[in-house]
């Protein structure tokens, strides 16, 4: 049986005993960096699900790095998105991190970006690592633009992923109540 909940991201799996919660972090106060470490290599895929926003007066992007690697420009990404008026596509190659969208808490502290990030074959030591993201943020037509997108990312390393770190490209914080949950798919 295909696992319907992550059909959007293209992973096939099974219900019941093959989808496991690994760890969750919900912010009690604004925080600049979120790290999941000591990720076991006993799964086939990882899925990071969450809601988040930044503490700046504008939308922006978060940076996701693996295994503490921030040098060598080993990350690249592509996105197909919509902003409510037109579709767009962007690419960024040779980056120091994978990037994903972060809505602004300046709109209102109650509107959160939601996203599902699949990290495929994360423990395979023969492949570079591919990431797929479905994300979205709507503001009811507010000041800060809304966005819905499908993104892919590449980490050019054959090392198994044992930690991932999230930060913000604006150098500010994830807002209180941002929450990330990491799951393993057998």
């Amino acid at each position, binding site marked *: 049986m295909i*696992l*319907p*909940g992550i*059909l*959007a991201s293209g992973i096939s799996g099974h*219900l*019941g*005993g*093959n*989808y*496991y*919660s*690994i*760890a*969750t972090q919900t912010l009690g106060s604004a925080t600049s960096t979120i790290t*999941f*470490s*000591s*990720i*076991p290599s*006993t799964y086939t895929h990882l899925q990071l*699900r*969450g*809601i988040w926003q930044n503490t700046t007066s504008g939308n922006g992007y978060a940076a996701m790095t693996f295994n503490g690697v921030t040098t060598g420009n080993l990350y690249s990404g592509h996105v*197909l*998105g*919509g*902003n*409510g*008026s*037109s*579709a*767009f596509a962007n690419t960024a190659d040779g980056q120091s991190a994978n990037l994903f969208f972060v809505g602004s808490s300046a709109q*209102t*502290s*109650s*509107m*959160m*970006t*939601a*996203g*599902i990030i699949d990290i495929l074959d994360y423990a395979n030591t023969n492949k570079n690592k591919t990431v797929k993201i*479905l*994300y*979205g*943020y*709507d*503001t*009811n*037509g507010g000041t800060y633009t*809304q*966005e*819905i*997108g*499908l993104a892919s990312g590449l980490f050019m390393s054959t090392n198994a992923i044992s930690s991932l770190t999230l930060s913000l490209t604006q150098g500010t914080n994830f807002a209180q*109540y941002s*929450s990330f*949950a990491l*799951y*393993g798919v057998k």
Partner: protein
Amino acid sequence: MMASAATYTPIATNTIGTSTATVTFSSIPGTYTDLILVTSGTVAGTGENGNSIILNGDTGSNYSVTNLYGVNGSTTGSNRQSSQTFMQIGRTSTSSQSISTVHFMNYSNTTTYKTAIARANDLPYFVMATAGLWRSTSAITSIAISNLNGNFNTGATFTLYGVLAA
């Protein structure tokens, strides 16, 4: 880092036995982290095939969506709706089986508004991704699914899953 027990659980499934205007999941427990609604089937009529969702019976102008879509293999675009009385998210076709998956993220927290993200596959000609917003801090306890075009046809299936974080 230790993993928990399996945590992806079907809460309820409804395969309709007769043409039905609205399918409702009620008394949804607040014990999960995310809800995932999967719809599959066809609808009667012609024209717009968008699904409409009402949460907790709220028919106020508290819903909005932003869409990204591709049509007929040739046209892409994005549009949005503000202050709607339902969340237009997911689609169901008149002509062939359509599948939509809607993720209601952190649905039971009582601090933030609720954001949903979805993928809709409305064959033979439409693919869409949607971000939806319900401007309420209430936990989601019921989900009512209709279609703007007409009744869901016999055999349409609706399944609600709960995902529980550690």
